[in-house]
């Protein structure tokens, strides 16, 4: 057996995926918390994935994405180091070939991607406000003392409409308390929160975007059935949540690696063995010119495996 490895290193989670090379079936999938230590998360994940695949499996290429893509790329030896937008789009296109809108909501960020005829034509990412991301729900869940995992089930059991003003988490919270005191049921309030998140998301990243079906909803928050239903209510169209909604970035990275390897004919992947090594991340300010670029260096034992951050080629190594 052989296939492609994809890794998505985000600020909240680090995800792994292995696709077989024949029909892109998923051979292994893993979702880990990054906990602010991406190197450890990558090593741990590689270990788990390698065990799961067993000895006979050959990795033909590796792709990385997410905010830690440079780092992950240096550690595993990636063929494709790509941004999240491209990775998510490629993955969604593969799962749902006629997709025209991708709604992606993660823990701390969210994006919308528009595609026409299989090509990305427009996108937006949330900038500062977290009101349209998963952390909005996390905060309210803590407030309601309800596990976030139960939110979806509770939301779709709601009987009546409660409108929660929530353009900002702080205001949503005070409004929610107000609604609680008015005696609304927990289900109704949770449904109101789901709708508020969807409205925030659409007002934030979705502003001015032409949302056409087929609509795909992915990212960690897609687990929440309430949000899915809220999207369907607001957009008046069916919303598809793909099977591997929470690791779509990693799937995209693997697919992009496949694409890259097809072009170059060989892989830079270093194998699973490197996971036993110790990696060290350092940085220094280059004094070669007045730019004073901050150069980041990743070393494995005594060997430097990755170096980037400069505006010229002087230190580049990956």
């Amino acid at each position, binding site marked *: 057996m052989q296939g492609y490895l994809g890794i998505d290193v985000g600020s909240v989670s680090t995800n792994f995926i292995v696709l077989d090379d024949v029909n892109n079936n998923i051979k292994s999938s893993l979702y880990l918390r990054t906990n602010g230590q991406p190197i450890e998360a990558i090593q741990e994940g590689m270990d788990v994935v390698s065990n799961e695949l067993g000895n006979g499996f050959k990795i033909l290429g590796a792709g990385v994405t997410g*905010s830690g893509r440079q780092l992950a790329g240096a550690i595993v030896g990636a063929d494709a180091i790509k*941004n*999240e937008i*491209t990775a998510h789009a490629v993955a969604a*296109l593969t799962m749902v070939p006629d997709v025209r809108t991708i709604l992606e909501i993660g823990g701390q960020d969210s994006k919308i991607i528009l595609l026409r*005829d299989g*090509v990305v034509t427009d996108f937006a990412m949330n900038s500062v406000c977290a009101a349209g991301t998963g952390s909005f729900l996390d905060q309210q869940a803590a407030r309601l003392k309800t596990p976030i995992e139960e939110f979806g089930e509770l939301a779709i059991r709601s009987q009546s409409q409660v409108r929660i003003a929530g353009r900002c988490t702080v205001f949503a919270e005070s409004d929610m308390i107000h609604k609680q005191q008015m005696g609304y049921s927990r289900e109704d309030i949770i449904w109101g929160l789901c709708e508020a998140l969807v409205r925030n998301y659409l007002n934030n990243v979705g502003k001015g975007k032409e949302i056409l079906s087929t609509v795909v909803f992915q990212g960690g928050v897609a687990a929440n059935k309430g949000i899915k239903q809220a999207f369907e209510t607001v957009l008046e169209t069916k919303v598809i949540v793909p099977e591997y909604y929470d690791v779509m970035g990693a799937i995209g990275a693997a697919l992009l690696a496949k*694409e890259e390897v097809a072009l170059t004919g060989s892989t830079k992947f270093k194998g699973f063995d490197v996971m036993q090594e110790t990696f060290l991340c350092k940085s220094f300010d280059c004094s070669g010119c007045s730019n004073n670029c901050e150069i980041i260096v990743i070393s494995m034992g005594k060997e430097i495996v990755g170096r980037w951050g400069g505006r*010229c080629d002087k230190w580049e190594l990956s």
Partner: protein
Amino acid sequence: MRKVTFPHMGTSVFIFSDLIRDLGNEPIVPLQPNKKILDLGVRYAPEFACLPFKVLLGSYLEAMERGAEVVVTSGGNGPCRAGHYGEVAQKILDSNGYKIEILVFDSVFRNPFQFIRKLNYLNKAKLSYWSIAQLIRFYWRKLQALDKLERCTHKVRPRALNKGITTKVFKQGIEWIQQSRNLGEIEEAEQQGLLALKNIPQDPDRMIIRIGIVGEIYVLLEPAVNHEIEEILGNLGAEVDRSIYLSGWAHDNTFGHKKDSLHYARPYLGTAIGGHAQEGIGHTIMYAQNGFDGVIQLAPFTCIPEIVVKTIAPRITKDYGIPILTFFLDEQTGRAGMQTRLEAFTDMLKRKKRQPLKVVGGEKYARVFGN
């Protein structure tokens, strides 16, 4: 000698500093905006002031630490807020006990006497008006040469085999221009610079996309504030063109005059509303018509004219099919987030240009993208 500073704007710094010296003052050359300057600006500026105001205020404060006594800056007559900046900065600095004089130069046509008075004040060397005119002509030529080189880097950078070399050669060219002492030497330096840039080893077969950059003048012209967006884009394989160059000259030669951009803008924005709103809209349309793949709008956060432009942008995208990506920049804008968006944008434009294979079949994991 009186110590005079001025706003930092991209590569043009040395030109203004030489001019100020020739007029008989000691120039306090402003530093490229950095963290310290931004922090100073943020501390004294109102929260909702736009980024250019914060940066300028910060750099005046920094220059004062090095002894600056006078600031020379440009004015404006509204309705963009920038026209009031000189006065507001002066009042803020006064009320915080700083001693500095901000000399605002408004259009000479609006109040010629005031303009002359300010010019005389600055003219410590007691040059004749004729000599001043000559000086301005000389430095204007330098500005043009600078812009010409910069435009050339936009073409060379995406095709260069070696990342970073373009910027290095450009810096060399800037030095040549700086050192030239008469119009003939400027001409020579310009030619030499252009040749050096053209001699950079390039990959002629590389797929290049073309991106137009429009927006507010300060964030457009100050790489330190826009995170060197042109360099990032160049390294991502995009040839860029800006709607505004300081000398204005270079642009008029490629796309016709400002008049044209206003003509195209009118159906979308019927009047001048301050800033470079109409020019931005007009240029976006002209970029679309000239086969550019995308447009990036750069604006300071809370900038009023640019908010109007962004509101109108989706309609232009719809009518002309040109993707527009907007960045509202403030002191919190991070380079990493910007890099990700720019990568995604250039990726998107490249894939679009490549016209990948149409989706075949509906099977779940079909291979859908071509190379």
